[in-house]
C-alpha cells in the first residue's frame, strides 16, 4: 500500500491558485492550512484576508473568512475577537497593507495585546496593484513608483515591522521567516504553529513575518526570486525570533 508522505491539506480547497508561478503567497497559504489541520483549528478559526494579491484567499482556505478594508485587518480581527473570544482569529496581510496604510491599526492592536495572530507577507512591493514601492522596498530597488531605484533621501528606508512591533509590551511572539527553501519553509511552518499556539494560550499578539518571493514584480524567474531572498532581503530583514514571552531567552 502507498503511504502518503505529503498530501494536500484538508483545509485547503481544491481550487487552483490565481497566484503567479513561484509566488510565496501560495506556499504561505499551504503552510497555514497544514497548521490549521494539524492543530485541529478548521472549525474554530476565522481568517481576515486583505486587499492585495491574496484578496481571494477565501477561495482557498476552507475556513470562515471575511474581507477587510485595506490595512484594517488588525482592527477587524480585534472586533471579531472581542465579540467572540472563543474563536481563533488570524489576519493575513501584505506589507503594503500592514506596514503602509495599516501601520496604526497594526501597532495599536499589538500594543493592546489583542489575542490574534498575524501572517505578514513581506514581498517588498505592492503586488496586486502592479509592483509599486512598499514600505519594505529595499534601497535602490526599482519599482513602478521608484523607477530610478528607491532613494532613501526622497523615498525613505525599508521599514522593519518585526523589530518595531517587538518593542510593544502587548506582543507575545514575533518571528521572521522566509519561504524560499525547503529548510526555511519548514521553519516557517513551525513559526506559524507557534503563533497559533500562543493565541490558544491567550498570551497576546503573535505575528509571523514571511519573506516571500514576488517573481512577477521583481522581474525574476521563480528560482532567482527564491535565491534573491537569501542574497538581498535577509540582509535587511534578518530571520529569527524577535520576541517570545513564552521563552526565557529570546534567541533564535
Amino acid at each position, binding site marked *: 500500500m502507498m503511504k502518503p508522505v505529503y498530501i494536500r491539506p484538508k483545509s485547503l480547497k481544491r481550487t487552483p491558485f*490565481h*497566484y*503567479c508561478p513561484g*509566488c510565496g503567497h501560495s506556499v504561505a497559504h499551504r503552510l497555514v492550512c497544514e497548521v490549521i489541520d494539524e492543530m485541529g483549528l478548521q472549525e474554530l478559526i476565522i481568517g481576515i484576508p486583505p486587499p492585495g*494579491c491574496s*484578496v*481571494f484567499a477565501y477561495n482557498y482556505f476552507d475556513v470562515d473568512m471575511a474581507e477587510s478594508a485595506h490595512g484594517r485587518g488588525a482592527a477587524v480581527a480585534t472586533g471579531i475577537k472581542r465579540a467572540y473570544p472563543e474563536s481563533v482569529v488570524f489576519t493575513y496581510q501584505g506589507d503594503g497593507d500592514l506596514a503602509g496604510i495599516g501601520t496604526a491599526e497594526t501597532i495599536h492592536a499589538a500594543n493592546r495585546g489583542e489575542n490574534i495572530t498575524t501572517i505578514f507577507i513581506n514581498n517588498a512591493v505592492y503586488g*496586486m*496593484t502592479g509592483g509599486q514601492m512598499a514600505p519594505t522596498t529595499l534601497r535602490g530597488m526599482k519599482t513602478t513608483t521608484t523607477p530610478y531605484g528607491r532613494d532613501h533621501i526622497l523615498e525613505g528606508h525599508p521599514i522593519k515591522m518585526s523589530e518595531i512591533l517587538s518593542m510593544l509590551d502587548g506582543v507575545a511572539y514575533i518571528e521572521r521567516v522566509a519561504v524560499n527553501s525547503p529548510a526555511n519553509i519548514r521553519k516557517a511552518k513551525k513559526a506559524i504553529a507557534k503563533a497559533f499556539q500562543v493565541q490558544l494560550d491567550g498570551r497576546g499578539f503573535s505575528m509571523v513575518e514571511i519573506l516571500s518571493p514576488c517573481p*512577477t514584480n521583481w522581474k525574476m524567474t521563480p528560482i532567482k526570486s527564491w535565491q534573491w531572498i537569501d542574497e538581498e532581503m535577509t540582509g535587511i530583514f534578518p530571520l529569527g525570533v524577535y520576541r517570545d514571552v513564552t521563552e526565557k531567552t529570546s534567541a533564535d
Partner: protein
Amino acid sequence: MLIKTLVAGFGGQGVLSMGLNLAEAAMLEGKNVTYLPAYGAEVRGGTANCTVAISDDEIASPVASSPEFVIAMNQPSAVKFQHHIQSGGLFFLNSSLVEAEIIRGDIEIVNVPANKIAEDLGNPRTANMVMLGAFTKKSGVVELSNVSEALKHILSAKKKLLDLNEKALLAGYNLF
C-alpha cells in the same frame, strides 16, 4: 466606419503591444481610435487582452461586446472569444497553438501559424508581429506602411529589436 478588434492571448505573448501598434497605425492615418487593455490588474496569470476601436467618426465605447475582428493567440482565448465575434467577422487564430474546433459557421477563420513562422525566422518572441502582419493584410483596416511606422515609434527605445520585428511583420503580411 467603426471597426473593433480584440486581441487576446497569454500574458507574455505581446498581445497588448500588438493592439497598441494597431492603434498607433490608425492614429497615423488620422482616424479616431481607442485602445483599451483589459485590466484584471488585481488578478495575475491567465490571459491578457485588449480592444482597439478605429473609426472615422467619434467612438462611443472603447469596449467591444461584438468585435468585427478577433485575434486569438492561444487556445483559451480561441475558446472564450469565438462567441463574441460579430456575424460575418474575421477570426484570426494562431494555429501554432490553437487546436480548438471552431463551431461557428457565420464567421471567417484565418489560420496563421504565427509561432511556427516566428521560430522559422529565428525569434519565437515575434509571433505577435507575424500575426499583426497577417491581420493587416487580411483586415485592410490600416496600411502596412503605417503599421511599420508605428512599430518604429514603439520600439524607438529598443532599436535593436526593430529589424527582427519588421521582418516578422512582413512575413505575416506576405502570408496571404
